[in-house]
């Protein structure tokens, strides 16, 4: 039985999945196509409805 999990995509969804699993003690391999993780959300200036920074 393998115990690791593969997460494909390093946007907000992929990052959150990875963090949850990693915090549970599961080893996660996070694969992202672009040079850095962050996804679309990193491109946003601020987010609704709180106008907080996106990153």
């Amino acid at each position: 039985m393998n115990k690791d999990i593969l997460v494909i995509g390093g946007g907000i969804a992929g990052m959150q999945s990875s963090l949850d699993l990693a915090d549970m003690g599961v080893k996660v391999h996070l694969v992202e196509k672009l040079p850095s993780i962050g996804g679309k959300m990193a491109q946003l200036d601020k987010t609704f409805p709180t106008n907080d920074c996106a990153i």
Partner: protein
Amino acid sequence: MLDVGRHPNISLMAYSEIEKVEGHEGNFTVTVRRKKRYVDEAKCTGCGACAEKCPTSVPDAFNTGLGTRKAIYSYFAQGIPSTHTIDPDFCRQLNGKKCGICQKTCQADAIDFDQEDKIVELDVAGIIIAAGYDVFDPSQIPEYRYSELPNVLTALEFERLLSASGPTDGHLDLPSDRAVEAEIKALEKKIGKSKRMLEKFEKKFDESSKQFYEKYNKGDYSDDKDRKKWADKYAEYLAIMEPLEDLKKKAESFTTAKRLAFIQCVGSRDFRFYPFCSGYCCMHSIKEAIIAHEHENETTSRIFGMDIRAIGKGFEEYKIRGGNNSNITYVRGRVGEISQGPNNNPVVTYEDTHERLVKSQEFDMVILATACVPTIGIIELAKILGVELDKYNFIKTSPFSPVDTNVPGIFACGCAGAPMDVPESVAQASSAAERAAEIAIQLRQVQNVQF
């Protein structure tokens, strides 16, 4: 993002792609291609000295092409990992020209022009697809003339203009004006060169070019070859200087965009393209209008939509606040056409369905709330994983098991499954983690207690 990069249980493979997946729930073997960056990840400290010295500028994808980056680059300033990457399409060295400046600059000795792709095999119990989405390309809609009209932008492009770390430092400079400014810059560069050439002549003959040129035009020095060359160069200089001064004069009156139009459902709720609703774009436009107003408080915005879908927690209140405090008006109606008005100002022609009138209005800038569409790589990825897609190419799930795909052990979350906003994506990401954990963690043997 930082937590992901730092977590001891997360092995991060950016700039990598899934090549092959074999096996089944509990026992998958995955082949990953780690693409060559031409930079040693272990050595690069992300300091950016290489990018500062790199002579090649290319359009910056992170800034939706609105700014430039170098051929060696970090994807964005706070990107994780901060490892730089050489763009093989533009790098001079990799295209057979003499350069290698980055290699000379790098004090960490991280540049490696001979790097090769690495193939990595992973054994995993389960897989989570969080492949995200693409933004609809509005140039497919002829009546909005996105590719022709400079001051018609997508919502994501507008986002980069609003960003303090974006190409305009957060100022709503008009793309048409930025084009003129770029032209001025290019002409100034030429003028500089030309001036330096003239200075050589001026020094040699100890006379200003202007004085000389007046005499030359009177017919003096007609047989002097050197002076003829000087005269030609001065004529060239004047030919650049005149349009440059005109442009500079024009640029004096440039102002930032203050009259904004937001057009909803661009590519979505449209039978020609995608019939579904992307869910978040109404709020995205409202947010952009509110932030634009925060930047300059005389900004006015009109949001053209069919239904304004403010369906999340605090969203309707946010929409109303935008109307009351941020000069936003909401117009119920679909925009039929965008045309070119004076000074590159786009003119929006629409039906106001409440007044039952067709109207036209001029704006400084038009922002298209483009649809959230399946990401281009998803078809190939689904094939590799054996995962079923719906008729639009989103990953198919059921309302009763919202993150399970048809393949046991493979889960999906976020916009790969359907368009959704950030909190829904985050919630689904945790759901997918839960389902994956059920496979990855052996069941705990805890004594049952009866109460």
